[in-house]
């Protein structure tokens, strides 16, 4: 157990360090996210009242779209430099490769959320730092990256790569989208917990299902 944890930690550290040195993924994700917030402003010409209601939806679209950009990159280093085989040989238990990747992608999503939220709050003069909304986004981010990490590990090995990921990912993510937006709207409108609690449950259930399936099938993604 202790051994497994330290393996996991090393793998996550490897991803984070790599990202810290290149900053490829995060810069692109953040630039894209902030640009999309600008596009939404001009595409929708929202008046303040509507804007407040739509905030969780817009925020989630921005986060998932820029998150997809990041996911596309998440297995590129392993593919291009052929370190995947080395990883498979070095790491006991292939599931931990997936879990480590999932956690580092999840952390990347958290960084994205932590930066996008204040920018959005600032630009639209609406405070989004509400604990409930943060919790919803964190649950959503876990589900998003759980589905995304598994799919990205497959699309990285196909011919169409980046093109394919969103097409595979978005239909699978539909319940997450509905749940995040509905829970977010409930929280932002100040409704009682009981009215949106079920959506948080949907997120939790989705996260658990996706994590379990991924851990179960990841072996088949890497083993020939």
């Amino acid at each position, binding site marked *: 157990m202790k051994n497994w944890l330290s393996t996991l930690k090393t793998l996550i550290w490897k991803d984070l360090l790599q990202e810290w040195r290149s900053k490829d993924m995060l810069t692109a994700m953040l630039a894209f996210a902030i640009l999309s917030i600008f596009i939404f402003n001009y595409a929708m010409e929202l008046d303040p009242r509507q804007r407040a209601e739509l905030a969780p939806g817009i925020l989630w679209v921005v986060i998932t779209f820029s998150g997809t950009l990041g996911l596309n990159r998440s297995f590129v280093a392993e593919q291009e430099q052929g370190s995947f085989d080395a990883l498979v040989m070095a790491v006991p238990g292939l599931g931990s490769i997936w879990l480590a990747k999932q956690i580092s992608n999840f952390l990347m999503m958290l960084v994205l959320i932590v930066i996008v939220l204040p920018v959005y709050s600032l630009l639209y003069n609406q405070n989004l730092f509400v604990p409930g909304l943060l919790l919803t986004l964190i649950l959503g981010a876990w589900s998003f990256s759980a589905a995304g990490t598994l799919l990205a590990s497959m699309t990285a090995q*196909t011919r169409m790569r980046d093109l394919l990921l969103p097409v595979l990912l978005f239909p699978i993510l539909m319940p997450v989208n509905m749940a995040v937006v509905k829970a977010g709207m409930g929280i932002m409108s100040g409704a009682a917990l009981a009215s949106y609690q079920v959506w948080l449950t949907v997120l939790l259930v989705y996260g658990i299902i996706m994590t379990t399936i991924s851990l179960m099938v990841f072996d088949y993604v890497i083993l020939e």
Partner: protein
Amino acid sequence: MLSWNKKISFLAIFSGVLILLAFGLVLFYAPVEQNMGLVQKVFYFHVAAAWLGMLGFLVAAVCAVLYLRKPNLTLDAVAASSVEIGLLFTAIANFTGMIWARPVWNTWWTWDPRLTTMTIMAFTYIAYFLLRRGIDDPAKKARFGSIYLIIGFATVPLTFFSARLLRTIHPTIFGSAGTGEMAMTPAMYQTMGFSIFAFSVLFAVFLIVRSRLRLNQQWLEEQEALEQEEEFGEVING
């Protein structure tokens, strides 16, 4: 003993007769619904097609799990063919539904959970074929396809549940449950049951023929690849 091909031909002819009989029942046996009139008759094919849509994806998901447990390209061929047929019938179900919805609900489309789920499901399986197209190695194609089928199939119930939840919180725009329900007479139930049976036999025929075609195609491709290798060898050696 009949040969395999003959058996399939018989089954195909049998399914054709069944479909014709189903048409006959729908047109002449089932009564005309009082409120909706003739357009309600599309319902018998609509339900049968929707059933095949789901059956197709269920069969594919089962094959996918079996494939991961014990790799066998025949299972993969059945899974892919099943998705293909399921997709076709899902499209038929959606379009017949629209034909019915236009006069009855006064709109081509509504964000009803069943409509939404079926359409999202169709998109999942279109993505499945795109994924397969991006991979050359047949074994890898089958493995990745199976994984995607399993995830896709696991999320369908959640999508349906969420869409339904969304709907109940949402205000109902097109008259409430009343329009969705029909008082069915026994003749209507019989017609529906027969139509579902006829379509299911058709599904079996399609599945067998398509899977065999797929396997033959695979075999042919392998043979061609082998021949090319041989020719290449001759050029090098000669």
